[in-house]
């Protein structure tokens, strides 16, 4: 499962991810990090079976947690060229048997890199 974690000026100073990993034994994968002096944002991947434990712990330590459900989507204007294939850091896109572009949306980390490179502007985040 993917979670967006928001840290405030207090929590951003704590080694919270390490604590959560040690206490729950979950292998937490940091996909994206934007950490400043007074706040921070992480996107992390947590194994499904440990997700509840990790979630509870993070919230207890004062981190705002939001599950990422809606991810990248594709419009009809896609011509299946594949410009997105090599741009996506987590390999969301792939060719199916018909050589059409398909999405493994659950892998999307919301970086938005593909949106800017699509020549037919077919990619977007549903609101």
């Amino acid at each position, binding site marked *: 499962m993917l979670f967006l974690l928001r840290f405030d000026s207090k929590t951003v100073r704590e080694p919270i991810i390490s604590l959560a990993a040690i206490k729950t034994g979950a292998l937490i994968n940091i996909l994206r990090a934007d950490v400043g002096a007074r706040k921070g944002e992480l996107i992390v991947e947590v194994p499904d079976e440990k997700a509840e434990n990790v979630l509870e712990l993070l919230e207890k330590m004062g981190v705002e947690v939001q599950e990422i459900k809606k991810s990248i989507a594709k419009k009809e*204007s896609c*011509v*299946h*060229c*594949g*410009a*997105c*294939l*090599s*741009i996506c850091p987590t*390999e969301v896109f792939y*060719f199916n048997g*018909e*050589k*059409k572009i398909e999405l493994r949306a659950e892998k999307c980390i919301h970086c938005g890199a593909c949106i*800017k*490179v699509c*020549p*037919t*502007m077919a990619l977007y985040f549903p609101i």
Partner: protein
Amino acid sequence: MKTIEEINEKIRQGDVCVVTAEEVKEMISELGPERVLKEVDVVTTGTFGAMCSTGAVFNFGHSDPPIKFKKVWLNDVEAYAGLAAVDAFLGATKPSETKELYGGSNVIEELVAGKEVELKAIGYGTDCYPRKEIETSVSLEDINQAEMINPRNAYQRYRAATNSSDRLLRTYMGTLLPNYGNLTFAGTGEISPLNNDPEYRTIGVGTRIFLCGAKGYVIGEGTQHSPPFGTLMVKGNLKEMSPKFIKACYFPGYAPSIYVGIGIPIPVLDEDIVKALAVRDSDIKTTIVDFGVARRVRPVVREVSYAELKSGKVEINGEEVRVSPLSSFYMAEKIMRELKKMIERGEFLLSTPVERLKREEVFRPMKQKEIKVVKDVMVKAVTIGEDWTVEDAARLLIEKNVNHLPVVDEEGFLKGIVTSWDIAKAVFRKSNKVRDIMTKDVVTVYPEDPIAIAVSKLEKYDISALPVIDSRRKVLGIVTSEALSKLLGR
């Protein structure tokens, strides 16, 4: 031996055997070339890619009172009007003057989709064409001729692109990530028309083709035609095209462009033609070039086959690099099947070319006046050490009458730069050492860079001088905006 006339007779009778380029390769390896020659009459090839050298010529009919266009715009995209009174040529990559991410390609797409576009024009006001301006809206139905005429389409193969620099590049080959972060390529390889007829025996001037759903024609070799990087000049009637096979697109940081769908039938006349049709992606080679170097002759990273490119991963310097095609295989296959159906239904007859395309490689660079390089305009740099004081720096600036001091270590390697502005900052902040006030992230050039590169860096970063360094970052000199403006007479 078969003739095109015999094949056309079979098409009329409805008993022609047509297969796609993808299918014929399997058949040749399974059944052998003799049986394929005997059984197959036509092979359809296809490509669907961004083809920048695309456009359309229009005749809008005469207004009352009549006008001779001085300038003309369609949906605020300017078309070339240096033709007869109401003729104009609209290029696909011309950007709109008012709307972002919109260009000639979108106008063509909207017209093909049956939409109306706004026409605005200004005239010269002559005795025969007195009118000086006009505004109206037109659709394809209202226009006398709307002929797509593309100077360069259907590249046989193309150089793949990557980027060694530490900066993300937005190019006509798509977005190239820094440090060989990815690789892009164009063309459909073994199913692409010209790769299946590399001697240009059946694809020549007058060959009837599938162009965006319409019947079109090859009208000559394309611009920059240089076998085996062959190209085609083609035309077709916009009014007969289908929006399914044409798509406007936009390459950020470059320009609008357009996806064009082309299918070309190859008559299976003799054994040599079958042999050519057997070509596989692994036989089709191209080079990977480095767009990190903004020169005409971009360094070649390595040779590569279309089989490797299509596998999705290519090795560069021992690392796996992910690949993006820019052409659509899905659409190319759809076009091959569509053309196959058209021939089987008797709607599409083959034509004999009236002239063959050039088979030798010729490609000249632009004739330019002598290219000036940075070395020609750089001057000796007055340098300073990191441990010197701010006062030393101020004295040097005044005594040597310069505005920039590259900061170097004992061996002359670049560490930073100090300008008179930094001195002002130092006074304000009460800093003491050059080390504390210098800018560490220095924008530099190489002595062999053309001055155009130096100028664009000065403009891009809004700075007034660039240290000139060698590959080891040793300072060789400095080039200033004053020296450049003097040279360019600005």
